[in-house]
């Protein structure tokens, strides 16, 4: 098996946007009517669209290489089916016996009270996957998402084929080893360290590629409509003012916007394709700069340029940790590569992942004496250097993990670096949809997932808590925010927190599952909000909206799909919204984790509570915007549905947002993502010491799945109900409620005072230190420098005197004396021939005399 052609297709998909960027930025201006030409946009769409097709081709190749759909025994279909069979059995048992049995022993650990209802709920919920496996559903789904990724199409098709096939594959862990890694280009070799551009392709890479390219294509299309007011030679920016209070006039920057988008796509795809962590870092920074450029796209607006700076600087804080992590890794492992480098099937150079090995308990293999973590070869034997085992201190592995995670915290706007993301909404809405919700901010989660094999328990716990704090805090703020985009921004932070939590509690698949589903429904919602903003002439305040359902029905309905998806609503016939599945998976992982480690109970309850809050604020948004009576009649009168180029992407994304997770953890998407999951996930990790963490395996998670699902669903429904009562029906006077809860409201409205906190913690001290430095510079350094200068001048004056009098005098003396000698020599050359001949004789005689006198006879 060779990854060559596979990597070629992905490289085409990766490099096309770069081509797009180069063409757009350098030639975007060379057309007959540059400011009004849409050529750049079409070119960008063409590049990213082709990229999507290439990704799909690569995916099908990968499938055939790994034998995913290899007849009836193909691992993917078989695994899906195996899950189905298992679940059916388990659910049947639950339903029939309604009793604790061997399969579901863990159900009852401390939750026996819920056993009854939970079991039933589980049954009714999870009956859907088995239904979904039925041939009836598959074509329906195909129709619903006619141009969906091949994942679902082929999935639906083969699902039917594999329907009544036996489940020989017990748990799918004989699945593919479909990782392909290799070198694209070697940048240089420095001693034992090689810096190169590598690729690392596994199922996660492919899913990310298809997801990013598909969403990016939709958003490119949408942006052509949304940014169309830039197609002018004289763009009036109503939010930017010149010094004399007038609006800023400037030429439109349509082509530039698409150039930046293309560059972003290139960077994002490069990040996903990267085969070593240093390369990840490079593209990490590249997406960072794209984010900076796009947030500050309306650069004349002070708020926009400030927000761009804020985003960039806060990310640097995280990246600092990232760099520390990289240094630790390089020092101890000597490589940045993820995967092994193979030549003809032989491992010639090990990657990071194979250099640490886990024992039967799931913990890292350690040195018996020093307790440091052993570095091993691919067969788990310790690597030696100079007769001693190569090891890395456990603490430094923690530092490396935390360092890399720090980068992820910055990029994914996790606590405590979360404050930049809401401000980033200053960028155009398509940017918010693509960069600041669906892809770039998810890169932090992606990297945490990619780097998962290197994380130790302490790091995972940190990740879980950071995620937990973030998801709760952001959700509470989202409740009070009135700017439609800001609500979505806080929601994004909150959902990213969910993903981090999922990863942290050992729900690797759950976290990344949510990453993909979230990307679809959040990009959908952002585009819907963009459509609203566009239709309302750049009004973003929800209190001024209301009753837009009739004015813009397509937007309203697609938005509702997104809202239901994020709230995690189930639906009949297994057509659950995607968020239901993915959030379910996370909550289940969290519950299993808390079951195993009761002291960390918050890690379950906060997400559960937040599931309700999420539903509440999302429905609040929807009711505020689309329901009820218009609050601002003027605005309402002028509102209109967006043109087709903006609504079509909504209609494409909506089915994905709804059904991409079809089948849940037994569906194709989840099975695909976890196709190459880290091997130690399956059995979990047992605590080796008292007080250590036990990380639940698949079995444990599976056991509590239905219980967690029920709880999450109840929370979601109650949140949604509350929102309906408050904002849909209006049973309470909201202003009075605000007044009564003014303290809490104010606290939330001020975003938990984080900006003020950072201001007084970092900004003000920094200003003070800066002022002191400035004073010190002026008072002390300048004087020292001036003193030196004065001394220099004095010395120089003396030096000049010395130079002129002594040195020049000497040289002049030498010159003058030699010149006068020369002049006197001229006298000898008289020009008289007689004298010349005399000199011959004299010369011989003189010389002879010289030899005669000096030589002793």
């Amino acid at each position, binding site marked *: 098996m060779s990854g060559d052609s596979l990597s070629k297709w992905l490289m085409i998909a990766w490099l096309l946007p770069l081509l797009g960027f180069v063409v757009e930025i350098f030639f975007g201006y060379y057309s007959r009517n540059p400011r009004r030409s849409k050529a750049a946009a079409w070119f960008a769409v063409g590049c990213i669209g082709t990229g999507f097709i290439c990704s799909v081709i690569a995916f099908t190749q990968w499938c055939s290489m790994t034998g995913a759909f290899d007849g009836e025994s193909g691992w993917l279909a078989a695994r899906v089916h195996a899950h189905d069979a298992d679940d059916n059995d388990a659910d049947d048992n639950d339903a029939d016996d309604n009793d604790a049995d061997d399969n579901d022993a863990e159900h009852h650990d401390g939750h026996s009270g819920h056993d009854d209802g939970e079991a039933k709920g589980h049954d009714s919920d999870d009956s859907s996957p088995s239904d979904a496996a039925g041939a009836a559903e598959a074509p329906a789904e195909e129709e619903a998402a006619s141009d969906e990724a091949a994942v679902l199409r082929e999935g639906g098709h083969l699902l039917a084929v594999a329907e009544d096939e036996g489940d020989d594959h017990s748990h799918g862990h004989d699945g593919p080893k479909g990782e392909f890694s290799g070198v694209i280009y070697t940048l240089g070799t420095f001693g034992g360290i090689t810096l190169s551009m590598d690729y690392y392709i596994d199922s996660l890479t492919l899913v990310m590629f298809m997801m990013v390219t598909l969403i990016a294509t939709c958003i490119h299309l949408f942006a052509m409509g949304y940014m169309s007011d830039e197609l002018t030679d004289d763009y009036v920016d109503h939010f930017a003012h010149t010094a004399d209070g007038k609006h800023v006039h400037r030429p439109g920057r349509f082509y530039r916007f698409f150039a930046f988008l293309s560059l972003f796509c290139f960077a994002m795809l490069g990040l996903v394709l990267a085969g070593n962590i240093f390369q990840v870092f490079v593209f990490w920074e590249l997406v960072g700069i794209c984010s900076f450029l796009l947030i500050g796209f309306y650069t004349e607006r002070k708020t926009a340029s400030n927000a761009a700076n804020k985003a960039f600087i806060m990310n640097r804080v995280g990246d600092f940790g990232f760099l520390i992590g990289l240094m630790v890794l390089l020092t101890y492992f000597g490589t940045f590569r993820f995967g092994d480098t193979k030549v003809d099937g032989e491992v010639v150079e090990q990657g990071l992942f194979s250099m640490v090995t886990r024992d039967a308990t799931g913990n890292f293999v350690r040195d018996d004496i020093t307790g440091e973590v052993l570095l091993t070869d691919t067969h788990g034997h310790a690597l030696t250097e100079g007769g001693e085992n190569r090891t890395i201190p456990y603490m430094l592995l923690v530092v490396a993990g935390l360092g890399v995670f720090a980068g992820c915290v910055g990029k994914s706007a996790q606590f405590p670096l979360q404050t930049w993301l809401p401000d980033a909404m200053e960028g155009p809405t398509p940017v918010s949809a693509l960069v600041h919700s669906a892809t770039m901010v998810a890169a932090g989660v992606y990297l945490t997932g990619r780097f998962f094999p290197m994380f130790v328990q302490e790091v995972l716990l940190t990740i879980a808590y950071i995620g937990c704090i973030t998801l709760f805090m952001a959700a509470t703020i989202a409740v009070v925010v009135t700017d439609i985009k800001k609500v979505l921004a806080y929601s994004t932070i909150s959902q990213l927190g969910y993903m981090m939590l999922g990863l942290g509690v050992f729900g690797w698949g759950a976290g990344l599952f949510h990453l993909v589903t979230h990307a679809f429904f959040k990009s959908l919602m952002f585009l819907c909000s963009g459509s609203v903003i566009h239709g309302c002439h750049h009004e973003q305040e929800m209190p001024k909206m209301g009753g837009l359902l009739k004015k813009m029905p397509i937007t309203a309905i697609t938005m509702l799909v997104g809202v239901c998806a994020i709230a995690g609503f189930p639906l009949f016939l297994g057509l659950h919204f995607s968020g239901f599945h993915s959030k379910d998976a996370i909550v289940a992982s969290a519950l299993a984790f808390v079951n195993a480690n009761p002291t960390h109970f918050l890690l379950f309850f906060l997400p559960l509570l937040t599931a309700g809050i999420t539903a509440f604020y999302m429905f609040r948004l929807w009711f505020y915007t689309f329901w009820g009576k218009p609050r601002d009649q003027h605005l309402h009168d002028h509102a209109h549905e967006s043109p087709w180029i903006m609504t079509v992407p909504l209609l494409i994304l909506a089915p994905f947002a709804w059904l991409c997770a079809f089948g849940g953890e037994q569906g194709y998407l989840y099975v695909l993502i976890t196709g190459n999951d880290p091997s130690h996930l399956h059995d979990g990790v047992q605590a080796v010491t008292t007080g250590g963490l036990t990380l639940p395996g698949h079995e444990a998670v599976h056991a509590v799945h239905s219980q967690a699902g029920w709880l999450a669903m109840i929370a979601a429904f109650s949140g949604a109900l509350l929102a309906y009562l408050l904002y849909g029906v209006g049973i309470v006077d909201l202003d009075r409620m605000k007044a009564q809860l003014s303290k809490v409201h104010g606290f939330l409205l001020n975003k938990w005072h984080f900006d003020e906190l950072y201001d007084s913690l970092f900004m003000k001290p920094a200003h003070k230190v800066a002022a002191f430095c400035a004073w010190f510079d002026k008072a002390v350094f300048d004087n020292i420098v001036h003193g030196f200068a004065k001394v220099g001048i004095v010395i120089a004056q003396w030096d000049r005197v010395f130079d002129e009098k002594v040195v020049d005098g000497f040289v002049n003396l030498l010159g003058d004396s030699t010149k006068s000698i*020369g002049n006197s020599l001229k006298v000898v050359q008289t020009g008289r021939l007689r004298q010349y001949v005399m*000199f*011959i*004789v004299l010369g011989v005689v003189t010389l002879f005399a010289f030899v005669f006198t000096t*030589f002793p*006879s």
Partner: protein
Amino acid sequence: MFEQLIQDLAGDNGSLYTGLKYFSAELWLSGTIVVMLLLRLFSVDRWIPTFAVALAGSAIALWGLFGQFTELMTANTDVSIAFFGDMLRQDLFSVFFRMFLSLFLILTIALTVLTGIPDNEDAPDFYALLFGATVGMMMMASANNLLMLFLGVEMASVPSYVMVGFLKGRKPSSEAALKYVVYGAGAAGVMLYGISLVTGVLGTGDMTLLASRLALVSDGVAGLGDPEVCVVALGIMMVLAGLAFKLSLVPFHFWCPDAFEGASAEVAGFLSVASKAGAFALLVRFCLGLSGVEATAELMTAFGVALGAVAIVTATFGNLAAYTQNNLKRLLSYSTIAHAGYMLMAVAAMMVMQNSDQAAGLGQEINAAVGGLLYYLAVYMFMNLGAFAIIALVRNYTFDESIDSIRGLSSQSPALAVGMGVCVFSLIGIPPFGGFFAKLMVFAAVLKSAEIHWFMYVVLAFGGLNTVFSLFYYLKIVKAIFIEERPAEARAVTLPSMEGLYVVVLAVMVTLLGFFPAVTEGLSSIANAAGNAVLSVVGG
């Protein structure tokens, strides 16, 4: 002697044939002279320009010598064969010089073609003289007998006298020629007297046998108290005086400034380089012939030190006297004297080392001394000819050879200006030009010899000091070209490309010899091989 010569030539066909083969380059040149004169006799020179014939003849001579050179380089670098009844010697040293001379001949012909001196009418005469002088110099380079030494010197000198006076209409030219002739005659007389003294006492003219014969005569260690040795020493001194005349060493230099000023720049360039090269070849052979025998070592060391003293005086005098000159040719003639002084230092170092009791262990260093001299001559050929060529080229536009003629030249003819700059900096010995490495090699040899005789430290010190002295007048040229404004009344210098190309080629060669280690090392290894060849016959 003649009897034996004729016997040798006629009696053994083999040796006659090999001798003629070795002598083929000189024969070619002589043949070319005859052809050129005949062509004019039959007025063919109207259709075939004489310089073309001259170029062809000299090119063939060079080609033939190159064949001999490669043969010696590949097969036997340190073989030295006497031929024509031991009158001449064929070895790498001799071939190196003859190649050098024939290459220089080509360059000089090319220059005369570019400057237009001589005109068509006089060309056969001029080239005949030029070729004749070159043949003489080649014989100097391969002379093995004191008789050949004299013949070579005279054969080189007589055509030179005429060439100096070649600008017939000019009074200074005629005067210079006359002075040169008379002075040369005086020097020749002294030298001939010296030769007769040496051969009379030692009973042989073969230079390789001089030292051993002197040891026989001196009956133990040679000292000046012995009247016979004293006579020989005086004879040697007189022979050296004759060579010193050709080398324009102080105090036998008086002819040089006058002759150069009077002669055209092309002739001056030729004489300054070519006759010096031949004379140095002769000097090295003569000195080596006197060295290497224990009995004469002490006396010859004294001669070596004396040569060092002469070198000091020559270099210092040449440099100081150049200060106040305004005529460029005259200035360069003093510069020529000074450079002869530098080169003589290498010979002095060689002589001192060769006659020390450690001579056997110093083979490498002695070799390096001779190699340094050859390298110096090779670089000197390009840089000095370049300087004279530029003077001649500028003269053709300005009709002036004073320093005013080149004032502000850089604004009008950058190629000439830069070429002159390169040549002058190389003459000073500033890296990275060839002149620096040449001087470096010579000084290194002197430093080595100073371990044997303290006086060589003095020589080295004066060598360094003189480099500083020389800055004053060399930089005067550079300043005039690059810094000063071109006077409004000065005639414009515009250059056809060929002349610029000629100068550029010379300047590039000067630069290459310094800039590119491969070129430098290549030439110096060849020079060392040639030095090795001449050393192989030391001490008979």
